């Protein structure tokens, strides 16, 4: 488990999403994708071009966003559809980002269930703005940003999460 937060459960959640992003991006990119660290922030990143938002329910709740620049989104969409990135429309790029987020959600869900957290993740919402507002924070929640290093362009994860089940039942990893 990556040591992202002092809280063990939060660290586990951040690790699950981070490894899912690395897994999914690596499968659609020839560039190496690595996480460079996590930080607690007061305000989410608002300068990205595209945001893919997932909503969590069950043993963990909250919102997770993948923030991308357009070049990165275009490359990923082209790799999903196995087509020329320059021929993609904005709608197709958003469609590709939606599928990318869907796959990250599925990969994370598998990791969390394997750790005993029965978490459901919504279909992705793709927008040109962040859906993570400061008002999402409660006294027990913080916004975490995970930065990634990738030569294809900019990508970051930002999330505001809460574990609702403190002692998960350990299940066998599938």
């Amino acid at each position: 488990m990556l040591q992202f937060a002092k809280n063990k459960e939060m660290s586990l959640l951040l690790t699950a999403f981070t490894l899912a992003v690395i897994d999914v991006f690596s499968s659609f990119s020839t560039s190496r994708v690595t996480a460079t660290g996590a930080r607690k922030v007061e305000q989410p990143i608002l300068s990205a071009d595209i945001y893919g938002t997932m909503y969590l329910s069950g043993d963990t709740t909250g919102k997770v966003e993948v923030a991308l620049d357009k070049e990165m989104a275009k490359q990923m969409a082209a790799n999903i559809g196995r087509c020329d990135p320059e021929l993609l429309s904005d709608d197709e790029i958003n469609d590709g980002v939606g599928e990318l987020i869907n796959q990250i959600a599925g990969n994370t869900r598998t990791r969390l269930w394997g750790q005993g957290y029965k978490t459901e993740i919504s279909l992705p919402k793709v927008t040109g703005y962040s859906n993570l507002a400061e008002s999402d924070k409660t006294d027990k929640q913080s916004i975490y940003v995970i930065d990634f290093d990738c030569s294809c362009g900019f990508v970051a994860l930002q999330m505001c999460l809460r574990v609702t089940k403190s002692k998960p039942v350990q299940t066998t990893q599938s």
Partner: protein
Amino acid sequence: MRILIAEDSALMRRAIVNVVGKLGHEAIEAENGASAMSLLRKQHNKIGLIILDWNMPVMDGYEVLTKVKTDERYAEIPVLMATSAGVKEDVIKAIKAGASSYIVKPFKPEALSKKIKEVLKGSHGKQTAKAN
């Protein structure tokens, strides 16, 4: 053979259609489970395989799977589930509901091609055994 592909991402459908085409089959496309059921009602006699994404708006892949497997008009058509989550409980649920096989995204075209061949081979075997 005609293969019905239900997948909400147009780009992902394009990738699956390419694989199906390279195997020499004809693809028909649905962008959600409800469209897939509508196409199935009209063309079920011509459809030899259904590839179903699990997470789709309107009607998800699991609901389509249960509808297909509980309707005698479609129950014999093999179903390959494609999903982004590899949770063991989901796999068991899909297989119990009658899915022939399961593939976890992201997958390489070669992996999907292999799965399609395996499912069709298994389905042909079952039909031959039934005929005998």
